[in-house]
């Protein structure tokens, strides 16, 4: 099987409101930076392009088609799209390369969540007969999940506050982070409750922005002469649509995806976990069996900025950045989709050979 490398990753700042910018205007600066990073002109120089976005976020039909205007699609290019986080666009691109249909791919994701009421918008991804008509929002579902964790004695509110405080402090070193600060768990615990038992700080912010990645075969990465990280394993597993049908205090799909991706074959120096709520980071790190020797969410994670449809790809990008910077040799990136960690993707990244 062809070994696949990540050779470039860029993201925009996570901002609470990108103002008048449309999707093309959000994407162009990120793409021009990644073209420069990899040393290519535009999407003509890769074999395949795949994007992740969701029209419900900004309330514009077929917005993802207009996003193609940022690529340079004359003459026509091979292009695809997932109505999901761009981490799944990466997954599609990995399959494309493994099947021998491409040697390189550009992957990008973008989201403008500020125009709508995101927790309400996301209620429409639920079961259309029972749950969506009740407008069950994402924060309420996460609050119920956190309540189950607390009542079973699996976590404490202080554990949750520690997750938030670490995110805020780690984000001080992340130039793209929206929320950062020298904050302690006591500061978080002093906040009033928002949707019990969650405080506002336990919830990720609403963010606008985009991210992009270029992957290719290892042979091509060497030919390009770029530092790279190898995607040594990637898998995704989905659980029941009905939150009542699964154990919300665990993430079986994350654990299985990590096994299939070969996470256990070596040490994990760094982990970037897509945990939109503080207690979910605890579920995920336990499901993955991460210990003290793993640096969890050094970027601050999505509690520091949640670019819907792009932050999953960013988790993989953040691990890539640390590997090529020499801060880590091996890392794991996790992405989630759906309410209460319904659908999970795990990618394992390894250091490439020194060029």
């Amino acid at each position, binding site marked *: 099987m062809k070994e696949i490398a990540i050779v470039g990753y860029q993201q925009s700042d996570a901002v609470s409101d990108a*103002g*008048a*910018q*449309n*999707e*093309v*205007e959000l994407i*162009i600066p990120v*793409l*021009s930076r990644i073209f420069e990073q990899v040393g290519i002109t*535009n*999407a003509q120089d890769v074999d395949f392009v795949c994007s992740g976005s969701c029209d*419900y976020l*900004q*309330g*514009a039909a077929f917005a993802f088609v*207009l996003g*193609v*205007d*940022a*690529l*340079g*699609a*004359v003459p026509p290019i091979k292009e695809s799209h997932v109505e999901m986080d761009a981490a799944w666009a990466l997954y599609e691109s990995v399959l494309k390369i493994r099947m021998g249909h491409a040697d390189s791919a550009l992957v990008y994701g973008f989201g403008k969540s*500020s*125009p*709508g*009421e995101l927790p*309400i*918008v996301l209620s*429409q991804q639920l079961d*259309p*007969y029972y749950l*969506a*008509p009740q407008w069950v929002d994402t924060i309420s579902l996460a609050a119920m999940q956190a309540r189950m964790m607390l009542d079973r004695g699996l976590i404490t509110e202080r554990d949750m506050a520690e997750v938030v405080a670490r995110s805020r402090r780690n984000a001080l070193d992340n130039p793209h982070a929206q929320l950062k600060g020298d904050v302690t768990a006591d500061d978080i615990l002093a906040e009033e409750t928002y949707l019990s038992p969650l405080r506002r700080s336990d919830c990720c912010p609403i963010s606008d922005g985009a991210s992009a990645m270029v992957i290719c075969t290892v042979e091509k990465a060497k030919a390009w002469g770029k530092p790279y990280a190898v995607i040594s394993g990637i898998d995704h597993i989905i659980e029941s649509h009905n939150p009542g049908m699964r154990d919300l205090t665990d993430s079986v799909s994350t654990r299985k995806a990590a096994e299939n991706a070969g996470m256990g074959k070596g040490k994990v120096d760094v982990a970037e976990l897509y945990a939109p709520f503080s207690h979910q980071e605890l579920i995920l790190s336990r499901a993955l069996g991460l210990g003290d020797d793993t640096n969890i969410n050094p970027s601050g994670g999505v509690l520091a900025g949640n670019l819907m449809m792009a932050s999953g790809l960013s988790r993989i990008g953040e691990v890539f950045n640390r590997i090529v910077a020499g801060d880590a040799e091996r890392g794991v990136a996790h992405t989630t989709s759906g309410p209460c960690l319904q659908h999970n993707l795990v990618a394992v990244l390894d250091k490439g050979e020194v060029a």
Partner: protein
Amino acid sequence: MSDENEMITGIEVPIYLKYNFTAGAAPARFLSQLKEGKLTGQSRSDPGAPVYVPPRGSCPATGQPTDTEVEVADKATVQSFTIVHIPIPGNPIEPPFVVANLVADGANISFIHLMSECDNEQVHIGQRVQAVWRPEEEWDYSMDNIKYFKPIDEPDVPVEHIGKLPVTGLEA
């Protein structure tokens, strides 16, 4: 329960989502110029780059930003058209009417607008038209500032020249 045979064929689940939608910086600039009675497009900064009306903020051919504003004429050429015979729900215009792809002089891609003050059967590709504007006091951030385009007495544009005219039109 004895209602096994009662087939449910549908349930009513209305969905209402509210958005503060923004068109984008480039379309917003286009609309604010329309309010001043001007049709403007955008192009890349390199000489000879195509002019897009209305602009979206990028050159779709290359993916580069369109950072140069270009004012175009309100004269245009018919690139394609259709005659609508069927009433469209919610549309106040009585059929039959003409919807046309028009390329403004100075622009390189078409936009869609209505044609009127014309014999529908005589409308043809390459035909020259000009905007009929609403009274200035009614101008808003809207393409509707132009009521429709009407034919003008200028020679037809050969097909290979449509979308390639300067702002001054065919005569220049």
